[in-house]
């Protein structure tokens, strides 16, 4: 067993011999994490594009590009995890209809296409203007992105608005399915007492929402700094607090439900939460990264604080929630595998730094969306200088 990175480092009690291997490691932690950020960031954009809340207009377009950047990387951890990534298209070409996993490619592709179209329609006017000024390769790129149409008359733009509204409205349930579906992948595994709960898709969707809101707040503050629209920021923080209350409540309710039901699984789950998961769950996910941001967000929402404090504490709370969701993903994905299906023992697991599914590849995959976001910003400006809050995008 030596040399296998996914092999458990220690065992308590009796674990089935094949349960010494944690087959779903860091890559499968990142997969729902990135998908959740995608869903949450898209929700931020929907506040303006679907629900027409003007105060969220300053981050609406940025949120869509942020969503696209992360969506582009959502499948990378999966591909890196597969034993035979070269066969991944078999899932699309010859899917097994009984498999929950087989549907991911279709939902992902559908949402990806809708999101891309929405962004292209939103930016069409800008792209046409850029095309007219550009030369060489950039002119070709802008021509392709503007879908070959130079018509930016009022009638054409009004039609664009209708298409954007339609794509936003349909995109919202699709992204809900995309994120909730990842929870379904875990919730559908009846062999694992930690995963098999109908609450799992709900918990994944809610935690994804808060990670998306947090991601937008963090990057909005980093990019805009002093030019942040405070009304928009306060609105985002308000929503973050609301969704965080829901997400954290459901996470605790799930544990409470297991404990209260006290089925034959509870002994094993108890050993898990007070054994291998004690630090990552109780200390970090619940203690440090949930309680503290909760009180910070409560203070930011209930007390009228100066802008500088809202920015500072909003940034800190959002950063902590991003970490909280990462820990939550770890505790669900890895935690579920640390408990042997013998329900008589648990294994301990620490990822390696440098190996196929280790910490370094995980960091690279998490940096990639930021690189993609930077590249996107070269073609799709996040914020237009001439744009005022009354103009429609």
């Amino acid at each position, binding site marked *: *067993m030596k040399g*296998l990175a996914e*092999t458990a480092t220690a065992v308590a009690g*009796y674990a*089935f*011999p*094949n*349960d*010494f*291997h944690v*087959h*779903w490691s860091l890559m499968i932690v990142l997969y729902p994490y990135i998908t959740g950020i995608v869903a949450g960031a898209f929700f931020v954009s929907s506040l303006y594009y679907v629900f027409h809340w003007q105060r969220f207009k300053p981050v609406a377009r940025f949120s869509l590009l942020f969503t696209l950047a992360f969506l582009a990387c959502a499948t990378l951890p*999966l591909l890196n*995890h*597969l*034993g*035979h*990534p070269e*066969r*991944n298209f*078999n*899932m699309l070409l*010859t*899917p*097994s209809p*009984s*498999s*929950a*996993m*087989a549907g991911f490619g279709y939902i992902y592709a559908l949402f990806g296409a809708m999101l891309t179209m929405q962004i292209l329609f939103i930016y069409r006017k800008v792209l046409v203007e850029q095309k007219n000024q550009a030369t060489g390769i950039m002119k070709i790129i802008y021509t392709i992105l503007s879908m070959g149409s130079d018509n930016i008359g009022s009638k054409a733009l009004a039609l664009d608005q209708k298409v954007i509204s339609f794509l936003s409205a349909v995109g919202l349930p699709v992204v809900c399915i995309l994120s909730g579906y990842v929870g379904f*992948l875990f919730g*559908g*595994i*009846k*062999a*694992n007492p930690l995963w098999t709960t109908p609450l799992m898709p709900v918990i994944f969707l809610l935690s994804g929402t808060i990670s998306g809101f947090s991601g937008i707040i963090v990057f909005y503050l980093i990019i805009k700094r002093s030019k942040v629209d405070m009304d928009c920021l306060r609105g985002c923080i308000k929503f973050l607090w609301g969704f965080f209350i829901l997400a954290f409540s459901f996470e605790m309710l799930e544990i409470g439900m297991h404990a209260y039901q006290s089925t034959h699984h509870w002994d094993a789950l108890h050993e898990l939460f007070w054994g291998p998961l004690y630090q990552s769950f109780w200390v970090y996910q619940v203690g440090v990264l949930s309680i503290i941001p909760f009180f910070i967000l409560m203070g930011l929402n209930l007390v009228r604080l100066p802008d500088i404090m809202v920015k500072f504490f909003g940034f800190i709370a959002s950063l902590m929630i991003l970490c909280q969701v990462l820990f939550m993903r770890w505790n669900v994905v890895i935690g579920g*595998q640390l408990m*042997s*299906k*013998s*329900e*008589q023992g648990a294994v301990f697991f620490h990822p390696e730094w440098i190996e196929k599914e280790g910490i370094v590849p995980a960091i690279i995959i998490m940096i990639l969306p930021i690189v993609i976001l930077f590249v996107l910003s070269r073609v799709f400006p996040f914020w237009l200088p001439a744009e005022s809050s009354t103009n429609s995008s």
Partner: protein
Amino acid sequence: MDELKLSEIKKEINKDRRAFIKNVLNGTIAGSLLMVIPAGAMEFSEQIPGMKEETGLFIEKKKFAYVVDITRCIGCGSCCVADKSEFKVPDGHYRTWVERYIIDDHDNVYVDAPNGGLDGYTEPREDVPNPVRDTFFVPKLCNMCEKPSCAQVCPVGATFKTKDGFILVDHKRCVGCSYCVQACPYSARFIHPETKTADKCTWCYHRIRKGLLPACVSVCPVHARKFGDLNDKKSEVYKLLREPHVISVLKPYMGNKPALHYLGLRREVV
């Protein structure tokens, strides 16, 4: 009267002698033929009664079942050795394993399976503080479920159920996503470190198709592992499953309906 009887008896004895010699000769000729015609003749041994080499896609008109008799297993590990040898199972992964259960007089249950029981249980456990009330061994392998979770979750259909009831893996289709490993309630699956695909016990499907018993069944010195056709009313497994024995399956609440049954299954078994 007596002389007549004596002559009849002698006649009968002579008849038997002739029949005996005839039978011996027949046997010798048949035996000699088997020795001079080695081409597969020994393989048609019909270890599974009525089961000859299957040339079709699936085995027809058979419904196989596997029964493990816990009251017989001595934990020698022969089955694990045979399995490892048959499939070149990589170290640290197990298609079959044998668990040792020890129950002390305080009703504490101690379970272990060092190296999957491959080395046999030759040494007693040293860490049981109280007097031992009971001890037994439980061999584990693929349950060949009627409703297999592994086949349900496989995104590309690489894990599939054959028409004759076997759950197999197509290594040329498997993408190595490990979803089946997570879905199996019995932890009977693993990802093969060399092929990077899912692997598990097949009940030696390749042997069964030739009428041979699974490797683990054929080497078991105490006949704790039994395999046969449920459609054959003379088979041992048919009789065991029909007669009033203490017999059950693992984790029945999972609803997978295993074709692997345990004779004398104890409630302590996980």
